[in-house]
């Protein structure tokens, strides 16, 4: 029989290893689960020990046997109590109703543990195997039944508000534990309570607490934050800006009105497009709004375009030009006091390809920077995803071009003879695919 306990212990230990080595949020729910895992592990150890000692009643001293049995049942009550806690917190999170049954649950825990440690214990010897018996186990088993009923009650009362997946997980775990308890009650010599606890823990781990599930939940939260930031606010923002623009114009301030107009254009365009690929025309429209604003701010800055008009319908990855031009302005022209020119051109090259060039008359690269950027663009795949920093814009462009168009396309930089640098984006020439 000891083999099963060892196997169950190893399973739980493996789960605990993965669980504790993964990064996760330290919410109340997860702390409870961590406590549950540790207690369940201790319980499995005690389970193994009692299975051994109860079958060696003659060699193991009586007081030692009593002690491990009392500890074993005590840990079982604690595990089931933590199960109840876990489910109660889960239900609270789902429904928003506060937990009202905590006090009776705790009082019952104390009573069960006291009964477990104080009431007399005895052992029954049968041909199929030995087991502990006597009044000491009545209270703990009563507590287990009590907690299982509480959980089932919680689930039944709140069944409408709980997410379907979580509902089925809790239901299945409870059913397993219930069946195991009934079997254990009918066949005292089977000693399978540890199996029920392991299976329950495992079902929670696999569905609710494994790192993948937690990570995707976190991602979802982040995405919805992004969504809020990028979709809802800009609509409000550009409507309000437009009202301010009209007021400015009514006050006779055409300059401010013009600036606001371009800003509204920029916001409107950046909110509108949410597809991975857009036409070059769309991309140029956004870029023009951006460059016009920058040229307003820095009057000695000048932007020129030379776009083959038949390329207007060509598909390009969304939002690749603005970051490149911004990069040219911030790293090339800023240190020259924003005096200079940026030329954006697009033309057919070779067979079925096109090249977009962003050429500036800025300060150019210092020697080590050029090598660093070349290296970064070359080994783009190995670069950790950055959320801030200097080259995040161009690295992002490189990654998206490679991903959406293929590895043979992408971004590279060359130095101009007359000073400044040119960014080259090589892209496949694709018309709209329908």
């Amino acid at each position, binding site marked *: 029989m000891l083999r099963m306990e060892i196997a169950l212990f190893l399973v739980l230990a493996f789960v605990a290893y993965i669980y504790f080595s993964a990064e996760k949020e330290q919410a109340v729910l997860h702390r409870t689960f961590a406590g549950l895992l540790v207690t369940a592990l201790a319980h499995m150890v005690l389970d193994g020990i009692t299975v051994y000692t109860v079958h060696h009643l003659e060699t193991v001293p009586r007081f030692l046997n009593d002690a491990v049995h009392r500890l074993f049942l005590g840990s079982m009550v604690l595990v089931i109590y933590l199960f109840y806690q876990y489910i109660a917190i889960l239900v609270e999170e789902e429904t928003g109703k506060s937990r009202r049954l905590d006090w009776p649950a705790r009082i019952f825990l104390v009573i069960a543990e006291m009964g477990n440690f104080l009431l007399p214990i005895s052992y029954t010897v049968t041909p199929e195997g030995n087991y502990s018996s006597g009044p000491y186990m009545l209270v703990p088993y009563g507590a287990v039944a009590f907690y299982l009923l509480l959980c089932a009650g919680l689930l039944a009362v709140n069944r409408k508000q709980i997410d379907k997946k979580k509902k089925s997980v809790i239901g299945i775990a409870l059913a397993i534990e219930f069946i195991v308890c009934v079997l254990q009650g009918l066949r005292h010599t089977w000693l399978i309570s540890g199996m029920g606890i392991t299976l329950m823990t495992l079902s929670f781990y696999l569905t609710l607490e494994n790192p993948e599930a937690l990570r995707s939940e976190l991602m979802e939260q982040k995405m919805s934050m992004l969504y809020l930031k990028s979709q809802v606010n800009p609509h409000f923002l550009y*409507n309000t800006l*437009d009202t301010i623009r009209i007021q400015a*114009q009514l006050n006779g301030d055409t300059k401010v009105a013009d600036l606001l*107009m371009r800003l*509204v*254009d920029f916001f*409107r365009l950046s909110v509108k497009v949410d597809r991975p690929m857009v036409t070059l025309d769309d991309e140029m429209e956004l870029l023009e709004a951006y460059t016009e604003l920058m040229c307003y701010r820095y009057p000695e800055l000048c932007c020129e375009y030379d776009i083959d*008009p038949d390329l207007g319908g060509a598909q390009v990855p969304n939002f690749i030009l603005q970051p490149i031009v911004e990069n040219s302005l911030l790293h090339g022209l800023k240190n020259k006091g924003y005096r200079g020119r940026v030329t954006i051109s697009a033309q057919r090259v070779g067979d079925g390809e096109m090249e977009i060039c962003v050429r500036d008359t800025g300060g150019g690269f210092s020697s080590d920077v050029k090598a660093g950027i070349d290296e970064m663009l070359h080994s783009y795949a190995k670069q950790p995803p950055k959320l801030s920093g200097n080259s995040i814009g161009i690295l992002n462009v490189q990654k998206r071009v490679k991903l959406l168009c293929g590895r043979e396309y992408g971004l590279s930089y060359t130095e101009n003879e007359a000073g400044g640098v040119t960014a080259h984006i090589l892209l496949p020439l694709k018309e709209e695919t329908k």
Partner: protein
Amino acid sequence: MKKLRVLLVDDEIMIREGFKRLFDWDAHDCEVVGEAADGMEALAKIDSLQPDIAIMDINIPIMNGLKVIQMSRLKHPDTAFVIVSGYDDFSYCREALRLQITDYILKPVNYEEFGTCIDNLKIALFQRQASQQDLFQEERAIHGLTRYLQEHLAEEISLSVLAEQFHLSAQYISQLFKSEIGVNFLAYLTNIRMERAKKLLLTTSLPIAQVSEQSGYGDYRVFTKVFKKSEGITPSQYRRDFLEKE
């Protein structure tokens, strides 16, 4: 030519004020005769004021702008509806086109470009009248001029070319356009060139450069710029958008 009467419909007072005071209505022979802030008010004002032009926001309280147009269309077939909206998505555009609105412009409204919209409206009005009158009345000078323009718009045309052709003074022709149609000569010429370009873009698969040439623009860069200013999108976008809707 009598002044065109305009009704402004928008729930934001600032937008109405902007239209009222920042656009030179006088210079375009128009006057704002009323305002409405919601759908019901708009319906009532259209009935009572019978405006020539209704400038409508879509997203207004009580009843949306498209519904207002739909309900007024039958009773007031001659009213021109211009939609002004921040909702630049296709579903609205498509529904608006089905209601045969005259024009669709996006917020933020550029008041200079709005003049082009009014000019186009007048030209459409003139062309409709011309097609009805041709059968009954003796031809007027302006109709000869516009027919000539229509036939020769791919060529270099200017007031002086017209003057020579029709043995009239350039100044007289210019006044004729202003008094008969209500727009200046250049606006009229640009309008019919754009109409030709749009027709070519949609009915042929000619490259943009050739469309440009056949619409009277030797340089496609100039053509693209003018087209974008008048339609809000580039020629190739225009062609694609139409194909998408099919």
